[in-house]
């Protein structure tokens, strides 16, 4: 075996051990904060794993969403858990679960090993799908096969995904509004001299990277999801710096931003019946421009929804963040 293969295998082994250890620590460790940090590092290791398994698109998405946005949401939950706890309650105690440990451990191990064995025995010839998808992608107007699956072959999945995203936001808001829980972290009232200059430095970089990922999506790793997540991260930073002021009234700009992706996509689905027998088929002419337009709308909606989910799970009376979540003032 050549040295490079040996090194690669060694790296894989280390990666797998790291993943398992981090997951174990995140779940069994004491202290919620520690668990959340372990989980965020687990997400970053997953991003490396995706890259190692030949899926750079997933690596980008995981780093931005799995580790970044999820981590921010969970850290928020930590602070909420601490500040909303009653004074007589033990900090986040764990009652013994109904399932005893001696039963849970072999049970889950059996499920995991059984699943691994089943997956291993699945034939790897791929069947008709990969061949068709890869062959079609070679002549497709989108050079990135994953983007062509997302926005052409399986566009219905992406359409419904946007619906789920919107539904999650609406559901979270309904829950949070219902109890009228107070905002946990109002806009910081003490001056933070470093933040504005940091934001000034990081805003153009994130905007440029996000827009590049959006643009690259048609021919290289990237796309609306990764770009939307990056812009969403920028919005979260603006919120943390107190640059977005939470308000109670629903704003037109915000409502427009969170619905434009689903709306435009649905409109396209209806209009496509004019030129094709099935919905979500692309026209002969101008398909590329159409995809770019839809992707841009998706990117805006994903970014805005992620920011609002972050803010919403934090200070519940928020109806909107006053400014453009993409980072403009």
């Amino acid at each position, binding site marked *: 075996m050549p040295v490079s293969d040996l090194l690669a*295998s060694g790296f*894989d082994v280390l990666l*797998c051990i790291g993943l*398992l250890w981090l*997951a*174990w620590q*995140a*779940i*069994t460790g004491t202290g919620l904060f520690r668990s*959340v940090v372990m*989980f965020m590092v687990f997400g970053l290791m997953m991003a490396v*794993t995706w890259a190692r*398994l030949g*899926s750079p*698109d997933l690596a980008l998405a*995981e780093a931005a*969403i799995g580790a970044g*946005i999820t981590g921010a*949401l*969970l850290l928020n*939950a930590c602070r*909420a*858990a601490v500040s909303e*706890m009653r004074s007589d309650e033990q900090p*986040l*105690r*764990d*009652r*013994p679960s109904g399932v005893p440990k001696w039963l849970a451990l072999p049970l*889950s*191990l059996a*499920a*995991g090993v059984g*699943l*691994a*064995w089943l*997956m291993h025995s699945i034939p*790897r010839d*791929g069947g008709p799908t*990969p061949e068709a998808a*890869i062959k079609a992608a070679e002549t497709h107007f989108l050079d990135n*096969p994953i983007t*062509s*699956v*997302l926005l052409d*072959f399986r566009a219905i*999945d*992406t359409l419904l*995904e946007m619906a789920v995203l919107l539904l*999650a936001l609406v*559901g979270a808001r309904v*829950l*949070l509004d*219902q109890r009228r829980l107070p905002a946990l972290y109002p806009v910081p009232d003490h001056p933070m001299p470093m933040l504005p200059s940091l934001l000034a430095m990081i805003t153009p970089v994130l905007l440029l990277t996000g827009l590049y990922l959006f643009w690259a999506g048609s021919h290289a790793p990237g*796309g609306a999801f990764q770009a939307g997540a990056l812009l969403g991260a920028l919005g979260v930073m603006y919120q943390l710096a107190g640059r977005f002021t939470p308000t109670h009234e629903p704003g037109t700009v915000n409502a427009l931003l969170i619905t434009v992706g689903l709306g435009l996509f649905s409109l396209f689905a209806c209009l496509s019946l004019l030129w094709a027998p099935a919905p979500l088929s692309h026209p002969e002419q101008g398909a590329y421009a159409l995809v770019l337009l839809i992707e841009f709308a998706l990117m805006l909606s994903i970014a805005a*929804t*992620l920011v609002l*989910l972050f803010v919403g*799970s934090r200070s*519940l009376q928020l109806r909107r963040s006053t400014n453009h979540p993409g980072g403009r003032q």
Partner: protein
Amino acid sequence: MTGWLFSVTAGLLFAIGLYGVLIRTELVRRLLAANVMATAVFLFLIVVAAETPDGPDPVPQAMVLTGIVIAVSLTAFALALIRHFRAVTGESDPEGGDDD
């Protein structure tokens, strides 16, 4: 070798996640465990995609990409649900119940 290794890792990750869902009663931790389980399933899909002879199969990759975005939106919703639960009951776990 690579596929075998990552298959086993995915299986063990699934086991760890399931163990966490069964054992932990504190809700945020249980949500983390469910997320680990989801990641294990993603890993299975991508291992199969990576071993497809015609090169990485784009269909599972697109499915997992969709799955990652769905997972974050559901995590956010579940966290709102947990906060709501805590506001209603004043408890951070449902007393060994399985309401998540």
